């Protein structure tokens, strides 16, 4: 597999075309990863040259959809980092239980595995009926998948282990029906979910939440864009609400940090002002 190294100017040109033609702004995405994704797409779709990729994107709106889906990373799993879900289950969600309606935002939810994980925890805490889970992503195709709640069956062994490690005590298989190679999750979980496209780069706050989860999304943004997103979260979070980030992400360097307190040593922060 020969891959020619894309030059910085070529990436910049491509991103400019994407922005001018479709309005998607990837200019503040972390460059090294983005470059790898574009190179990977060129290999996958067998583009003989950069010029041909550029032409295809400019002239074919359907291909643009594929471009967005492939250069954004949609890798996710259920109960990812089980100890985070344990803290949510044992400490955070019980604090939110007093609210008449618990509003949760999964920002950049990809195919939705973490939204379903949250719904399961809420159900076990008997809170699901009074919760609303807003699940958003830049990419409408992954949201369609999330809505269906159908995940590969061969992942269930890993997910079951994660679930147990996160403090789950039920039989995990009660939550889905196995059918050929897929596991279809119970519609009672989906009933409290609202799916919508939302671009963290350009879209504004759309509601107030008590809990925002945005895990392994910000690593793909540069510092300026991270700061904008933190502002957006700050504007979308009620006082005493919580923000949950990925294992390698932190609120520490953001200007909003003064209004927040970290929850023990977890990647969880509580709004204190």
């Amino acid at each position, binding site marked *: *597999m020969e891959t020619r*190294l894309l030059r*910085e100017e070529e990436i910049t040109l491509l991103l400019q075309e994407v922005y001018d033609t479709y309005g998607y702004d990837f200019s503040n995405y*972390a*460059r*090294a*990863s983005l*470059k*790898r*994704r574009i190179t990977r797409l060129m290999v996958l779709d067998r583009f003989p040259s950069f010029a041909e990729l550029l032409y295809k994107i400019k002239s074919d709106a359907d291909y643009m959809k594929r471009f967005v889906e492939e250069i954004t*990373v949609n*890798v996710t799993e259920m109960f990812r980092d089980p100890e985070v879900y344990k803290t949510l289950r044992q400490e955070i969600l019980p604090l939110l239980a007093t609210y008449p309606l618990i509003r949760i935002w999964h920002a950049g939810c990809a195919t939705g595995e973490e939204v379903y994980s949250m719904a399961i925890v809420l159900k076990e805490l008997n809170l699901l009926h009074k919760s609303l889970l807003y699940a958003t992503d830049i990419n409408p195709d992954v949201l369609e998948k999330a809505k269906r709640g159908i995940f590969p069956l061969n992942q269930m062994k890993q997910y079951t282990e994660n679930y147990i490690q996160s403090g789950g005590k039920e039989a995990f298989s009660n939550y889905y029906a196995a059918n050929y190679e897929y596991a279809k999750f119970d519609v009672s979980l989906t009933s409290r979910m609202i799916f919508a496209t939302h671009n963290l780069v350009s879209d504004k706050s759309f509601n107030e939440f008590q809990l925002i989860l945005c895990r*392994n999304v910000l*690593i*793909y943004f540069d*510092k300026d864009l991270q700061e904008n997103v933190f502002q957006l979260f700050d504007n979308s979070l009620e006082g005493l609400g919580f923000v949950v980030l*990925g*294992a*390698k*992400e*932190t609120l520490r*360097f953001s200007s909003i940090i003064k209004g927040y307190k970290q929850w023990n040593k977890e990647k969880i922060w509580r709004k204190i002002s």
Partner: protein
Amino acid sequence: MEQRKNLEEDQLVAKQLLVIGGSAGSLDVLLRVLPRLKSKLQTAILIVLHRKSSAQTSLADLFCVKTKRKVKEADDKECIQPGMIYLAPADYHLLVEQDKTLAMDDSEKVNYSRPSIDVTFETAADVFTNKLTCLLLSGANNDGTEGLKRVKEMGGKVWVQDPRNAEVSQMPKNALATIEADAILEEDKMADFINLLD
């Protein structure tokens, strides 16, 4: 004032980088080689080891005990500083950005691995070009070879552990079948070679 600030920042950025990639059979090599590195070495070191995704930061602690150099697990957007040793975190690819900061990526596994050695070698080569040396150690898969090709293209140096002495020879063997290494190193020689990088 602005200028002075830039100067200070410049001094905090590594000019020279060594990336070490290893899989099965390479942890013990590192535990023997790292204690022999001189403490004033300016070259920064990134270590990419295949390990279980459940593994936590204890690896950094393990290395810390073994060397006088500062060892830490890499953080996202962290600047690569001279003399530091950074470990790729479990379950993320570790990339190097143009401004010599580190970046994380949790995209698909490459060569069944995350972190993948290829990913770090390739992105480091783009940025550090001929100021880069990559060392590939023992391992049972073919990770590293593609990355070393890029390192050569960009003018960096390639060192490979001698497969005859590697605990698992597949990874260095595969690399040597494809690219011409600048040095094929027995474990005993590694520390001396690294100490001469500055």
